């Protein structure tokens, strides 16, 4: 009798690990999505969230990662670094080991720092930070971290690709730079100056403007300045409403220049370009153009639009999630330390065709870069944007080798 009671007492204790193990295996792998879901950046953050949820659904439909379902956990950071740290801590408390973020390099720097400190203080509970859109070069140079992986081309790489294209366009003679006044915008302007001076010394920089981030309601005075400068081309890293309002003001004033942009394709941009009638005068540098005609990308875009109802802004997010799955399968584990090791140096066929590689030295993903212009379509371009009837047309593909800049990262490995 006594033995029986002992056994009865011992049973739950013994049973715990036995039943516990499968319960954990059936768990989900959670990815904390730390981006603005309210405030000025919400319109962008919302689309990112839908994109990742779509990608998670797709992976889950194919059996998940190592049998585990992927779940995206939205965490609203209001585009604020301080708030982001609170959300990252929330992710830690919820036992989340993977976070992803993209909007704002100041936020990205704070998160990278947070994750690095967290991992050194909590061995065995590491977390990884997947950066899908914050492009300040500093994140993979001076401030590089082993736990940070970036899938978007950083702004230096984009500028390298753009200037390699501009090199062969003699009509560009007078360039005006207008950028948002924070780390990213400043790096766009300094790199543009440096690279243009090296590759096309004959180009004149006729203006160099920094304006506050997401605070300007009326760009008319800036347009007046661009006009007065006599520029034939404008280079801008503006995103969100800053690019939409800038193009709108240009249209109102009837300014006719070529726009070389990083993010004209964002919400409101295409509508503004169409209203402005800037037919194939606005260029964009991206890691993928569905209208370029690469079949897998075309199919993906079709399915994505049918389900989510918006354009795929982030082909890199597709690369990110697919590589995450591959890395976990290669490591045969969802342990962040092992996944990180597997991701390093990993080669991957990107969504839009061609080889990409996660550079080991700085965890910057290197990939082909495309330059496209927005305007009226032919039969070759099946997709339009924001119901305008206009779409992106491929202008140039810059191969990975031409879209690479060296890094100064001195990686501290665990």
């Amino acid at each position: 009798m006594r033995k029986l009671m002992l056994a009865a007492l011992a049973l739950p204790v013994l049973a715990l690990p036995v039943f516990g193990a499968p319960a954990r295996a059936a768990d989900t792998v959670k990815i904390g999505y730390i981006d603005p879901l309210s405030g000025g950046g919400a319109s962008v953050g919302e689309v990112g969230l839908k994109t990742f949820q779509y990608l998670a659904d797709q992976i889950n439909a194919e059996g998940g990662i190592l049998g585990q379902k992927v779940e995206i956990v939205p965490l609203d950071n209001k585009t604020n670094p301080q708030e982001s740290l609170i959300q990252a801590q929330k992710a830690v408390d919820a036992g989340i080991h993977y976070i992803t973020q993209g909007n704002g390099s100041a936020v990205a720097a704070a998160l990278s720092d947070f994750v690095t400190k967290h991992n050194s203080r909590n061995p065995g509970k590491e977390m990884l930070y997947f950066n899908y859109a914050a492009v300040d070069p500093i994140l993979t140079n001076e401030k590089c971290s082993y736990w940070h992986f970036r899938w978007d081309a950083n702004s230096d790489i984009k500028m390298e690709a753009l200037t390699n294209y501009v090199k062969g366009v003699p009509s560009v003679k007078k360039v005006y730079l207008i950028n948002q006044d924070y780390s990213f915008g400043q790096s766009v302007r300094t790199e543009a100056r440096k690279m243009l001076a090296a590759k096309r010394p004959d180009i004149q920089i006729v203006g160099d403007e920094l304006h506050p981030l997401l605070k300007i309601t009326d760009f008319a005075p800036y347009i007046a300045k661009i006009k007065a400068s006599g520029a034939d081309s404008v280079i801008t890293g503006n995103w969100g409403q800053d690019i939409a309002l800038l193009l709108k003001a240009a249209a109102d004033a009837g300014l006719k220049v070529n726009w070389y942009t990083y993010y004209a394709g964002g919400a409101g941009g295409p509508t503004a370009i169409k209203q402005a009638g800037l037919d194939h005068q606005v260029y964009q540098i991206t890691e993928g153009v569905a209208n370029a005609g690469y079949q897998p990308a075309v199919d993906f875009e079709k399915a994505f639009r049918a389900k989510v109802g918006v354009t795929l802004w982030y082909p890199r997010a597709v690369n990110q999630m697919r590589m995450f799955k591959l890395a976990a399968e290669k490591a045969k584990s969802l342990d962040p330390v092992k996944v990180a090791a597997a991701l390093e140096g990993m080669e991957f066929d990107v969504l839009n065709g061609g080889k990409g590689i996660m550079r080991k030295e700085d965890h910057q993903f290197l990939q082909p870069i495309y330059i496209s212009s927005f305007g009226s379509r032919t039969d070759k371009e099946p997709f339009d944007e924001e119901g305008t009837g206009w779409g992106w047309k491929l202008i140039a593909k810059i191969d990975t080798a031409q879209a690479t800049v060296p890094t100064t990262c001195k990686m501290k490995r665990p």
Partner: protein
Amino acid sequence: MLELIVISTLNGVLFGMLLFLLSSGLTVIFSMMGVLNFAHASFYMLGAFFGYQLTRWIGFWPALVLAPLLVGAIGMAVERYGLRQTHKHGHVAELLLTFGLAFAIEQVVQMIWGKLPMDYRVPALLDFPAFTIFSTNYPAYKMFMLLVSVVIFIALLIVLKRTRVGLIVQAALTHPNMVAHLGHNVGRVFMMVFGVGTALAAIAGVIAGPALVTQADMAALLGPILFVVIVVGGLGSLPGAFFASLLIGLVQTFAVSVNGSLASLFGPLDPSIGPSLLTDVWNVTIAQIAPILPYVLLVLMLIVRPMGLMGTRET
């Protein structure tokens, strides 16, 4: 140079008039009721979204009339069932109510329309350049905005200073009991004033929506600068708000067009000092600080002349 001055003046006036369009309702409510309506920019946003929705259904011109009426009705309901209840607890309670209301309206707008910008376009009738100066176009729509601002300014001045309605409204603020004894329904007067104030905000929203971006954060974007306008102009003074709007519009526009910095004035700093806070201050251009100049103006105004340009009492 002349080109830049002429164009900056025009742009400044246009932006200033937009600010006045926005702040007129706020000033009316404050001067008549003594309530500082924190949710004013939210009513402006409601106006823009109602305008967008109604434009889709029935066209821009009916929307320009209908949307302000709807928003005005909401404003009246807020006064009747919200502000009137809190009035007896003093101004702080009223302030907090409108403060909370601003958040509530933003959330509701996000729930209904989402967070993406709306495709709210300028009506075809006004979608052409009104005139061209120094090869810069000025859209007819902006001229329309200017016209509406001026008409509202004049109409409000006449109503408040020259009619019996204005007389009663002003009397109701300082001597509510006396006005009530004379047989006027003071509660209803306040309700009408609040309704008119919010309807004005909605007119601004319907008109500014296509010119700016119509999205759920537009209230937060323009909210702070409205307070600068009415404080600089003098709390509760309509002509003050008018001239303050113009002043802020011009200051901001001209500052953007100036590239000068301390470095360009006195030459670059000795490089041996190295990068520091001083080099940042030294190299920043006036164009870069243009958007904060209105707030500098606000602080200076409060120090030097707390009643504002044309105000009659201390802030």
